[in-house]
């Protein structure tokens, strides 16, 4: 069976005044219909850049490598040149939800107008039909008084309501793939719980593929089927969510889990990962995690390692360098 989305050997570099920065190195992931892939990592790990590459939303100074592929429906997105090709992807087959719902709506245009506009670009609908679909979507994401909200501006809605409206807008074109970039991070926990439950129901109902980006392992545990852990632009561990969170093998994944305050175990000490995430300008060669790895060798042999995932158990992929040191 063909995957819904397949990313192969993706490198992303940015040309900046200070030099060429590697944001993503050799990332390969795939996603099937109806599945949720969680991507976790700290700030600067390349989670958002990965998602933006799929939509081709990275800025003009971005450089992709030649042999990289991002395949959606047998078409390589990276080879698209015309805006018409890209339109099929952006908002058509693929929709995106961002972290800050206030920043994602135009402040001076009514929410309903924004919903209609994007629907009419992607679907052969007249205004009346587009309006009906939009109001129906607002109803389905649990917005009371959908007709009234349709004629309001983003600032008139509360945070949770705005995020619901954002979800309604993203889903109204019936995308095959949804990219959700920290969709619950800006929300309070009680609202986060509402939005997560809503998203779970909707993912099931629409049978979409979802890439769910977050820094919160708890959220990943609750929504994702599979998870990829990213550090400084590389995937260091990947597999079914249950396996990765219960049996983490890479020292970075273990570090993330140990640093997390667990409400069910108040006596466990909080163990930070030593050091700081290096600047992408001086990205370590070899294993990118070696500068913070508790198992890094004295003689520095990790400098010469080439990173790459190997399957250590069925479905559980681990970076080569982490295979040895994860056993310790």
């Amino acid at each position: 069976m063909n995957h819904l989305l397949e990313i192969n050997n993706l490198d992303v570099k940015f040309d900046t005044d200070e030099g060429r920065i590697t944001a993503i190195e050799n990332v390969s992931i795939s996603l099937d219909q109806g599945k949720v892939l969680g991507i976790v990592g700290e700030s600067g790990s390349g989670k958002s850049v990965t998602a933006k590459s799929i939509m081709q939303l990275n800025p003009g100074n971005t450089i992709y490598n030649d042999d990289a592929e991002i395949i959606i429906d047998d078409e390589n997105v990276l080879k698209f040149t015309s805006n018409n090709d890209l339109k099929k992807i952006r908002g058509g087959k693929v929709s995106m939800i961002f972290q800050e719902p206030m920043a994602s709506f135009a402040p001076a245009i009514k929410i309903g107008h924004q919903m209609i506009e994007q629907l009419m670009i992607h679907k052969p609908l007249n205004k009346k039909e587009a309006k009906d679909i939009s109001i129906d979507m607002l109803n389905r994401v649990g917005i009371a008084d959908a007709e009234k909200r349709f004629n309001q501006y983003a600032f008139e809605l509360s945070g949770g309501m705005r995020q619901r409206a954002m979800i309604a807008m993203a889903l109204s074109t019936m995308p095959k793939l949804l990219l959700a970039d920290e969709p619950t991070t800006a929300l309070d926990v009680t609202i986060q719980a509402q939005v997560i439950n809503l998203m779970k129901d909707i993912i099931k109902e629409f049978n979409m593929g979802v890439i769910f980006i977050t820094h919160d392992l708890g959220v990943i545990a609750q929504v994702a089927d599979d998870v990829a852990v990213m550090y400084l632009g590389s995937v260091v561990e990947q597999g079914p969510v249950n396996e990765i969170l219960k049996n983490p093998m890479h020292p970075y994944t273990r570090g993330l889990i140990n640093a997390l305050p667990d409400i069910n175990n108040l006596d466990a000490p909080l163990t930070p990962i030593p050091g700081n995430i290096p600047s992408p300008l001086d990205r370590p060669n070899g294993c990118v995690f070696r500068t913070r790895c508790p198992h890094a060798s004295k003689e520095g042999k990790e400098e010469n390692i080439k990173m790459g995932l190997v399957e250590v158990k069925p479905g559980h992929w681990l970076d080569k360098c982490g295979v040895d040191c994860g056993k310790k």
Partner: protein
Amino acid sequence: MSKNIVSVNNLSVSFDYQENFLSKKQKIKAVNNINIKIKKGSFFGLVGESGSGKTTLGRAILGANKISTGNVIFHDDDRDYDLTSINSKEMKEYRKKAQLIFQDPYAALSPRMTVRDIIAEPLEVMKITNSREETDEKVREIASKCRLNLEHLRRYPHAFSGGQRQRISIARALVSNPKFIVADESVAALDVSIQADILNLLKQLQNELNLTYLFISHDLSVVAHVCDIVAVMYLGHIVEMAPSRDLFSNPRHPYTKALLSSIPSIDPENKSKAIELEGEIPSAMNPPSGCVFRTRCPHASQDGKEENIEMGLEEVEPDHWVDRCGVSCG
């Protein structure tokens, strides 16, 4: 039993609000009839969602917000400071003893000052030190306590990561040798691995320097880990207050229960459904009468008798305080 360092008695803070220049002036009650006692050497946690009034309460205790009714008393070793009747000279003294650590380490530090100048500024403003040598000495001392590299003192904040910046903010707050610290969402902007590091640092400094913290956070798991005693706020009221282990193992108020159940578990098999609260926190401009939580409470009665309840904490077990309305429905 150790002594109290801060007593808050029947404290309310309200703000004037006018929608536009024609409309009537309104009062918004951000904090409503709060009574807390913070014990010396404790790590007092304050949790709640956005708009619950936690920051306003913290600022009122520091004298940074005007107090509408009630009072705040800071008990120093030799004397008490009553913030409602304090003069400006005493206020300056009080500022040396009570300090604030901010949330966003990127916004809190001036990009045009070196780290040394940032940390030294309180000493100079408060005229604590008399010579440059003395200032430098103090700066170096607190910087090393906060695990800052002394070479870093000559650099500017842009050269530092979020965790290092937060350590600089902490050093600045502690340089005047305060006894009481309000940490307002001080780890919220940090990545988890760095968050753990800063929390450990705060704990360690507490022991070394005999500090008392008021730790404001929206993150219950963080609060559960570091605080000895926790107060849960909702729409300007404290709805429950207890020693943290007691609160997290035996929550009594329906709001506390809902908050706890909303934390997504890191165990994928534990998909226990959160107690879903209807809607969102109401606006403080127009708070519900009676029990402020009644509009979202899963136990609210049909006849609406909660509308006429007067809120107030009751001690249900030793040191475990729950709002009256929550005692029966919880």
